[in-house]
């Protein structure tokens, strides 16, 4: 207050002359570090109090963290790194996972080259992960692979930058998913690696990606069905959505794990991981449907009426006019749903699958590493955090690029 007053006084008292800017330097307390401190931390007495409370909180957290860091022993992570990454995926087949990651790195690099912006942050994230992995005490061939991935990012960028092949890139992305799935699962000459031996981060990502890709069309269909003028379809969709949204995910997962075999004809068994995928898909679809419904309702009626007036039939109106606008509106909420799906994949640990969380429980209880739970949980929490935060950041960037909320 005092400083503001003094500057006002100074302004009033200042002689009108050419040298005003020189003579009227702001007081030292309102600029620089001191000014910043004053403005942001000590502007009023209760602000100052809050600052001291906050400082204490930081001190408490910091000292706790310091205690933890000084007594920490990361050998449990190092010894189980393979389990954490791919679970019990056969060692002689690991090249398939590596190839998938390499393909992914290339495509991300190319996306950067073609689209710039949004993809750049993904590139930075991937590059920093690879660089971190280079520093870690890994086997030399893993390091070579990591370096190769880094190089692929660059190659991808170069290819994308000079060709600017937008259409080809979209197709490549679309093709990459089934390609990676086939590569990992194995078909024909490639020996089959049943999903039940997949584990760790690989399983977590497989569950989330399959869940996201499969639940999206189902959710959109449900949302459209909920708006349908056919009462039978509408009530079916409403019933499904509300039923699924009313029960916890874990009950659906259990239901699928235990009951699904009962619902299938005898002799047909579905791998447990696939059952979990089905559960995630059915669950997330109901939530996606609600998100999309919000988007559909936000589109003015005039749009549909104009389309009909132009001679488009109901289906074409929906596909060409309503959905593109509605889906664009729902991107942030949709990504939020996918983030929560990604986090929820950890629930499969409760039904006995060895995803990242399941492997964490195994590793934390190996006789050699008893009492190392904190390291294990911190490690996997960090992995979850990086992915979730990256998705959230990407969503914000995308929102900006597409101009959601600006129309």
């Amino acid at each position: 207050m005092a400083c503001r007053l003094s500057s006002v006084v100074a302004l009033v008292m200042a002689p009108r002359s050419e040298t005003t800017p020189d003579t009227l330097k702001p007081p030292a307390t309102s600029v620089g570090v001191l000014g910043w401190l004053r403005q942001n931390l000590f502007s009023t007495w209760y602000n100052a109090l809050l600052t001291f409370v906050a400082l204490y909180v930081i001190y408490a957290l910091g000292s706790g963290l310091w205690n933890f860091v000084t007594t920490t022993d990361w050998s449990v992570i190092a010894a189980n790194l393979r389990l954490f990454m791919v679970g019990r995926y056969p060692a002689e087949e690991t090249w398939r996972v590596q190839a998938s990651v390499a393909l992914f790195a290339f495509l991300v690099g190319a996306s950067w080259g073609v689209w710039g912006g949004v993809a750049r942050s993904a590139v930075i994230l991937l590059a920093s992960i690879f660089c971190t992995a280079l520093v870690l005490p890994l086997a030399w061939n893993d390091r070579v692979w990591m370096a190769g991935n880094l190089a692929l990012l660059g190659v991808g960028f170069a290819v994308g930058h000079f060709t600017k092949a937008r259409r080809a890139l979209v197709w490549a992305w679309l093709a990459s998913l089934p390609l990676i799935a086939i590569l990992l699962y194995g078909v024909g000459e490639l020996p089959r690696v049943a999903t039940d031996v997949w584990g760790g981060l690989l399983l977590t990502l497989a569950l989330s990606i399959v869940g996201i890709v499969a639940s999206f069309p189902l959710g959109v269909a449900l949302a459209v069905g909920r708006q349908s003028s056919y009462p039978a379809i509408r009530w079916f969709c409403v019933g499904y959505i509300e039923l699924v949204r009313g029960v916890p995910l874990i009950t659906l997962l259990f239901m699928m794990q235990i009951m699904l075999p009962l619902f299938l004809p005898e002799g047909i068994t579905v791998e447990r991981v696939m059952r979990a995928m089905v559960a995630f898909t059915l669950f997330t679809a109901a939530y996606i449907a609600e998100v999309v419904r919000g988007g559909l309702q936000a589109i003015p009626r005039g749009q549909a009426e104009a389309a009909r007036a132009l001679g488009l039939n109901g289906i074409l109106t929906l596909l060409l006019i309503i959905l593109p606008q509605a889906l664009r509106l729902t991107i942030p909420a949709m990504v939020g749903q996918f983030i929560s799906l990604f986090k929820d994949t950890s629930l499969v640990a409760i039904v006995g699958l060895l995803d990242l969380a399941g492997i964490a429980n195994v590793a934390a209880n190996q006789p050699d590493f008893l009492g190392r739970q904190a390291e294990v949980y911190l490690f996997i929490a960090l992995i979850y955090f990086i992915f979730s935060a990256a998705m959230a950041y990407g969503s914000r960037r995308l929102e900006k690029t597409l101009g959601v909320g600006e129309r």
Partner: protein
Amino acid sequence: MKRDSRGIILLAVVAVVAFAIGACAGPITTVPTAAQPTQAQATSVPQPTAPPPTAVAQPTAAPTQVAQATAAPTQAPSGGPTNPPPTSAAAEIKGRLKTVLDRGKLICGVNGQLAGFSVLEADGNYSGIDAEFCRVVAAALFNDVSKIEYRPLTTQNRFAALQSGEVDVLMRNTTFTLNRDTAVGLEFLPTTFFDGGGILVEKSLNAAKLEDLAGATICVLSGTTNEQVLTDTFNALKIQFTPLTFPEANALYKALDEGRCDAATSDKSQLAGQRASLLSKPDDWAIMDATLSKEPLAPAVLQNDAQWADVVRWAIYATWYAEELGINQANVDDKLANGDTNTKRFLGGTGSLGKDMGLSPDAFYRVIKLVGNYGEIFEKTLGPNTKFKVPRGLNTPYTEGGLQYSPPFR
């Protein structure tokens, strides 16, 4: 244009309905899949004249129903320990055994988090006595102990996994009880480990008898027989206690280690294993003398498949029988070459024991050669040289006062 699209949609809907009806009707006509193989066989028997040329031309070809039915006589004499494909002469392979052999891999339901029984090691393999018995079965089936897919199961989903046919055999320290044998629909096989319910308690508490635990908090795994036994026993003795249940052992022992509960109850062997593997100061803890219950831990398969049950049953008996006869991993080749008739018959040197159950004649030889007899299995998983130091107790051959009494292999 508009009308056309309507028509197309109508057509598509009709097609979908037709497909749905077809899909729905399909299983209804063919669903008795359990009976399907016999049906197929029944049809193939009256017309053996059609397939013979091909079947005779390639007697060792794929073990299809037809090939087996006709090729049987040509295969029998050439049977011997060197006969690799597990096709059978005497037995008609069907049901689960056929499924497993066709798959070329045994799916074995295990605990996966119980050191000494089955636990996932950092190298991605499973160790422990239950895992060893998975290998016993795989050795008998495939002559290859790596042809196993282990499925870690929780106490909650273990029976469902067996019921749904997801696993071929359950080797998951499961207590053999009447309820599970009947209401749950399992078939139990010879007990691989005779155990008893016990209580693990901190030495410093000086608890000698159950009454000393009055007022204590006792940790127990939910969904186990121990949970009910604990309640029954303490109620009968009118001892006050607070139960604390956990769905899995890791959480339970962590809680015990931190002093959240005063004691834990489980099967004694498990207590021994987990004391050594999951408690930070194993030596501070003792297993009380009191035995709360009988806990025969036995493998289980789904009921109503006698052929498959027999394979697992006799593979387990083989480990007992070998110990009775003094056959072990080291001397099994010698015994096969120079043993008495009984030994040779057991190991497949003569006779057709293995074949009778639909396996290779040398199935039991493989079990001993690749895995070992019961004594050896016990030594390397739970015995005094391991950190668990579980006494063999009742798990010795009947000749040494134990409960292991294998029916004769003849």
